């Protein structure tokens, strides 16, 4: 069934708003900036957009109908709209939803978008109702990721240098990206000397807070051929949802998170990890990259240190990844930065950081509720190709 959608839909436009530390700009303002850029990038008229999917902003309060409000501000009256909440998995997940909605005949051209304004996050933190983790000071994704890094290092003996190598590689990539938030050169020594945020997680294991927005536009591959830019088809898409560390059904029930999303996406595309030319891996924290390399079948757990330290994620390596610097160095655009970069790599628009003859790109997403019991997470993936 799913195979029938493979290659029939395309991402035709990508965009981001200004991003960085930009206190004072509204979440809506960022969303609209990014949406306009994506519409213009596609060479579409605004009136051709008849589907709107928007990631639920972190600070929602009681604001229902967020996606419909975004549509109203854009002057669009969609026939399909939803506010989606897969955290950082929303970017890829909304593209997958858009394909299904178009295939079902609900709409023709879907705008997927998001924005974050981090300030004032402190207020939001007090709204969480977590009973079993927050009272112990286990707050936010940083704590969950620190536990995940702890277990990775315990189970597989990964040295800190592995995580450092990932951070350093992305920083090198960011130096080729004038828009990146973190461009200051970083050495492995700088990484190893960076302070603990939540031991064993160091400062340079973590992405910066980013205020900004991102967007992309999905339509049929057929319509895409009439538009200005080279067609970037969606060959595969998948998602899966599970808990991390605490599994209510019992610890032994666990399959490695994300493997179902990977199986779906590669199966739908009829490809294997060895067919990938480039990857954009969801990397709000370095342990995420280690996890996805295994979950998406790029290498086995015990091969990760050698795979990474041999430079396989650099432009000279087997799978150049996070070519714009990733969330860690380009900035936390909730995965929309990854979609933008993936699309541009396939189009061949990346200039100094273009991967030669990039034909197939994996984009992954990850997000959820880190400090609820159990911590639940969503995994999502897209395979993009010419």
């Amino acid at each position, binding site marked *: 069934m799913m195979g029938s959608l493979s290659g029939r839909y395309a991402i035709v436009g990508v965009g981001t708003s200004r991003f960085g530390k930009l206190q004072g700009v509204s979440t809506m303002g960022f969303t609209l900036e990014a949406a306009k850029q994506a519409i213009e990038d596609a060479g579409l008229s605004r009136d051709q957009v008849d589907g709107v999917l928007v990631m639920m902003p972190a600070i929602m309060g009681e604001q229902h109908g967020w996606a419909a409000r975004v549509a109203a501000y854009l002057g669009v009256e969609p026939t399909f709209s939803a506010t989606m909440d897969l955290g950082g998995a929303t970017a890829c997940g909304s593209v997958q939803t858009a394909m299904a909605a178009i295939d079902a005949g609900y709409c023709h051209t879907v705008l997927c978008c998001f924005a974050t304004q981090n300030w004032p996050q*402190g207020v939001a*933190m*007090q709204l*969480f*109702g*977590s*009973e*079993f*983790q*927050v*009272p*112990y*000071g*286990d*707050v*936010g994704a*940083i*704590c969950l990721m*620190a*536990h995940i890094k*702890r*277990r990775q290092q*315990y189970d597989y003996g990964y040295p800190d240098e592995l995580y450092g190598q990932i951070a350093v590689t992305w920083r090198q990539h960011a130096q080729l990206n004038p828009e990146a938030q973190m461009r200051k050169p970083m050495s492995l020594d700088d990484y190893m000397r960076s*302070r*603990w*945020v*939540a*031991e*064993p*997680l160091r400062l340079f294991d973590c992405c910066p807070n980013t205020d900004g927005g991102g967007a992309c536009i999905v339509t049929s591959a057929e319509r895409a051929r009439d538009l200005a830019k080279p067609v970037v088809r969606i060959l595969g898409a998948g998602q899966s949802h599970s808990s991390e*560390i*605490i*599994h*209510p*059904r*019992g*610890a032994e029930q666990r399959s490695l998170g994300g493997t179902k999303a990977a199986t779906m996406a590669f199966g739908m595309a009829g490809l294997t990890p060895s067919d990938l030319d480039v990857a954009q891996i969801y990397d709000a924290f370095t342990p995420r990259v280690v996890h996805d390399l295994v979950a998406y079948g790029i290498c086995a757990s015990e091969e990760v240190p050698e795979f990474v330290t041999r430079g396989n994620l650099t432009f000279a390596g087997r799978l150049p990844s996070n070519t714009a610097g990733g969330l860690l160095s380009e900035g936390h655009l909730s995965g929309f930065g990854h979609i933008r970069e993936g699309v541009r790599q396939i189009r061949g628009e990346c200039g100094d950081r273009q991967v030669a003859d990039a034909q197939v790109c994996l984009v992954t997403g990850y997000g959820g509720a880190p400090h609820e*019991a*159990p911590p639940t997470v969503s995994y999502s993936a897209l395979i993009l190709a010419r």
Partner: protein
Amino acid sequence: MFAIEKPLPRANEDTAPYWAAAHKGELRLQRCDDCGHVRFPPSALCPRCLSQHHEWVKLSGRATVFSWIVVHQSQHPAFNGDTPYNVTIVELEEGPRMHTHIVDCPNDQIRIGMPVEVVFDRVNDEVTLPKFRPAKSK
């Protein structure tokens, strides 16, 4: 100036017996009447067999450390004065894993697999947080 208070659990129908037991110095979780699964977090259904029938059984209080972290950069203003503090996930003898603090042990001596036992930290007249310390009994 306002002092920002630490967020304390606000119990609901599913979780109130857990917190009431903790306040009396007992660690209790739901054990499914139909399949025997001991579950965490507390919930209306057994996640293994979907039974709604359960008993709040008293646990041994014995556990081992599954993961531990030391928070140096506070992620919530109420915890600013506590850094560096550990957040530890223990695996209970009965199976479930839960977040807690390890007490009576320097942070740098916490180890995965370390045997620990429950102690009860009375926060105020209504709330007691289960915490764990290195096991004294064998």
